[in-house]
């Protein structure tokens, strides 16, 4: 299918989300739409998929102007969309999910499961998308769930696939598998619109790159262009992809975990005897595939999850099983993994969120009464110092972009007196500009002689920040290595194979 978007404009009130966007996707082409969060990519895809109606411009399919009044029409015209958040029924089987809404039937309107299963086997084979049609979706890993979404689109004879930030939830291995699938689909003549802000993936897989900034097409690029070229086009200025760190001069030990055992929500042991120590002026990066106990470890440190056994010491003070309040007051900074759930109150202002965990500290309150003047002054200062993009400190934090929401948390934590910082997935879902910013803040904090534990499932981040790298697998530390260690060796540690790696 040859898809052409001509002069698409979409406004929300006075805000122009898409401004005269024109793109052409040739058959068998992997076309990458690169742009920061908030650049207008998802709006454009929703227009293309019939979920939003453009104010101006037209959509041409194989040269014929087309209008979709809903997504069903888009599907019938051969457009398939794989959403960032999957639209699957968790308790249904793969086959049931794929045929949902278009079930093949036998006599008496009974669903023909055999035909559904056979169809899926056929499509799986044709496009090399291995998945068991009888598996229950909720039991599948995320990468396979995504495969089900792709299957579903293909089963509706999609000629053009829209992949909206498909790699955000995948492990490195799953990303590689997805790339291979994309290539084989393109070879089979399918067109692919690949939406992302991750430069490595863009370079690895795309044929043509269109870059969008602030709702406009700002240029096209080749996959052979360098990452920093792509980044500066995307952000509109030069970006440093690696953060300058001063020489590593560790001081005394500030943070120590001994033989920690923590259970998860289901009562299973998630952290199984973890020991770690971090020194002043050192960033300990904790790598590992998500779900190996990192979340529970950080929650236990922050006082949000009971410790079964073992100890957590902060500057010689025992904070094992202390309340979150006591942990915060002891000087532990915490950047939570799920910022919207644990880090912010979305219905409150930027100013209130900047004092969320210090509301009673002078000068923000006196004798039980909040000092709005001081709270505001604090917000004005931090918004300026930490470059938080907001129209006002009284703006609701929900109206900020993801990157700026994270800056609110980083500003709040780094602006109070800290003895140690624990950050969990500090740049997840952020764009290049914000990642650069957050990384620089972390490194500045470390350069100033502070210790930090940074948990990340992104290897790039682990290498960019860590002075030492600990790898977590199945609730245990499978190795603590130097950042000069190869990616492959760390990858092995991440899967629990520790052979051939020297432990410190």
């Amino acid at each position, binding site marked *: 299918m040859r898809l052409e978007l001509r002069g698409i404009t979409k406004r929300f009130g006075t805000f122009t989300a898409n401004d005269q966007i024109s793109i052409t996707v040739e058959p068998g082409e992997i076309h990458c739409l690169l742009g920061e969060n908030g650049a207008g990519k998802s709006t454009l895809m929703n227009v293309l998929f019939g979920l939003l109606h453009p104010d101006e411009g037209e959509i041409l399919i194989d040269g014929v102007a087309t209008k979709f009044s809903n997504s069903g029409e888009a599907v019938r015209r051969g457009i398939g969309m794989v959403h960032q958040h999957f639209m699957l029924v*968790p308790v249904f089987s793969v086959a049931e999910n794929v045929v949902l809404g278009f079930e093949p039937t036998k006599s008496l309107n009974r669903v023909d499961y055999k035909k559904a299963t056979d169809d899926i086997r056929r499509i799986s084979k044709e496009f090399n998308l291995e998945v068991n049609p009888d598996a229950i979706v909720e039991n599948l890993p995320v990468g396979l769930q995504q495969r089900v979404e792709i299957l579903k689109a293909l089963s509706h004879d999609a000629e053009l696939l829209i992949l909206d930030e498909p790699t955000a939830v995948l492990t490195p291995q799953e990303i590689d598998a997805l790339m291979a699938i994309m290539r084989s689909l393109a070879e089979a003549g399918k067109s692919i619109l690949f939406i992302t802000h991750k430069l490595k993936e863009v370079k690895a897989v795309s044929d043509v790159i269109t870059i969008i900034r602030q709702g406009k097409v700002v240029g096209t690029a080749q996959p052979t262009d360098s990452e920093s070229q792509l980044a500066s086009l995307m952000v509109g200025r030069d970006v440093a992809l690696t953060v300058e760190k001063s020489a590593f001069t560790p001081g005394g030990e500030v943070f120590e975990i001994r033989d920690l055992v923590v259970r998860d929500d289901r009562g299973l042991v998630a952290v199984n005897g973890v020991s770690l120590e971090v020194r002043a002026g050192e960033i300990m990066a904790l790598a590992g595939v998500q779900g190996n106990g990192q979340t529970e470890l950080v929650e236990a440190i922050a006082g949000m999850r009971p410790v079964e056994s073992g100890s957590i010491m902060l500057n010689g003070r025992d904070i094992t099983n202390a309340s*979150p309040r006591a942990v915060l007051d002891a000087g532990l900074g915490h950047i939570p993994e799920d910022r919207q759930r*644990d880090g912010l109150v979305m219905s*409150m202002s930027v100013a209130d969120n900047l004092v969320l965990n210090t509301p009673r500290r002078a000068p923000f309150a006196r004798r039980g009464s909040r000092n709005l003047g001081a709270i505001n002054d604090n917000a004005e200062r931090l918004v300026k110092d930490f470059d938080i993009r907001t129209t006002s400190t009284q703006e*609701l934090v929900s109206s900020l972009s993801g990157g700026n929401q994270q800056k609110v948390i980083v500003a709040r934590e780094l602006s109070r007196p800290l003895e140690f910082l624990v950050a969990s997935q500090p740049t997840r879902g952020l764009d290049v500009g914000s990642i650069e910013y957050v990384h620089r803040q972390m490194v500045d904090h470390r350069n100033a002689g502070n210790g930090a534990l940074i948990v990340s499932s992104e290897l790039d981040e682990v290498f960019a920040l860590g002075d030492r790298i600990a790898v977590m697998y199945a609730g245990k530390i499978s190795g603590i290595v130097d950042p000069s260690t190869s990616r492959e060796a760390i990858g092995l540690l991440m899967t629990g194979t520790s052979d051939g790696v020297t432990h410190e």
Partner: protein
Amino acid sequence: MSEVVTTGHRASLWARWTSKSPIVVTFFALILGLLVGAIIIITTTPAVLDAWRAMFHSWGAPGHALKVTFDNVGAAYRTMFTGSVINPSSFGHSLTTGKGWSNTFTPISETLTYAAPLLIASIGVGIAFQTGIFNIGANGQAVLGGIAGAVVGSMLHMPTVLHLPLTLLAGIAGGMLAGSVPGLLKAFTGAHEVIVTIMWNYVMYAFLLFVVLSTPFQQPGQQNDISRTMDPSAQLAPLFGTSSGLRVNYGIFVAIAVVAFAWWFLERSSLGFDFRVTGANPSAAKASGINSRVVLILVFLVSGGLAGLAGIVQAASTTHFIDGGFLIGNAGIGFTAITVALLGRNKPIGIVWASLLFAALGVGGRAMQASTGIPLDLAAVIQSAIVLFVATPVLVKELFRLRAAPTSSLQLAAKGWGS
């Protein structure tokens, strides 16, 4: 990542619909509520129905039917207004003759008398709502507050400066006591507050019947379920003296003080901030070091205390005693308070307007029943309809074409599970 900013899909339901042009929606909900009331008047008043049945009997009949309809609906709402706010003709009469001021001000006086305790109880419920707690037990808390206050007011004897404050404080303490039970149960066992408070209401009613039938609280020489009368020194006296015939009383100053306190508490106090954070995002509250158990117990003490205060204000300003029917049925201000708090969107100022409106509908409903024969229950129907429409802003917006369907619903549709 969605490009269009979706207003915190994790934020509570309250936050979501309170953020979208609330005053406009409330205003149109009011109009829709009155329309629903009009339809009920039309379909239940025999005179109106007869006129429509005779529609084909003569050329003038349809016009006549319309006129009868407007006359009846108009008369109902007119008496509702003149019975609860002011009667213009009576006002004019008082202006020209200088007499009958008491009659002129009776409607508004009655409305304020009813509004004061309702407002206090609604503020209590609203504070609980803002903390994410559904205090369905406000009525039971008001009952225990009323009992405690009436005991102090009728069985202790001292000068007004001591007696009245002590009576009100006893009311607050009684409400706190009643509220602490569901609070403690939820904090320590996780028992759901809605179930516990509903059940606890029955315990409070039973306790009420027990105390008003027991010596020494029962009115001496009475076999009925009625308490001793409170000393005048413990009563909230009429503002213009008993001889004025106007019941409006010092209870409104108590209500104003409660509104001022609630505003400060929610907007300015550190504890109120903890309450709001807990209500808006319990996970973030926990991560920020707020002790949710403490907040839970405190919010029930604050909410219950205000309900208890409402109970004693009700008793001390009107009947001056309590009986087995105290705060039961139509008089159950603790239940009305839930809808008033919703209508006022849990904000002190919003609750002031909402409780005035509900009090006026109740008082005006009585006047309407007396003069037109339309049952008082119509007022309750209108109240319920208004709250129903307030709770469904999308419907109201669609009906009045206030704004195109919000894009966030599309965004939501495009996200699916996991978002």
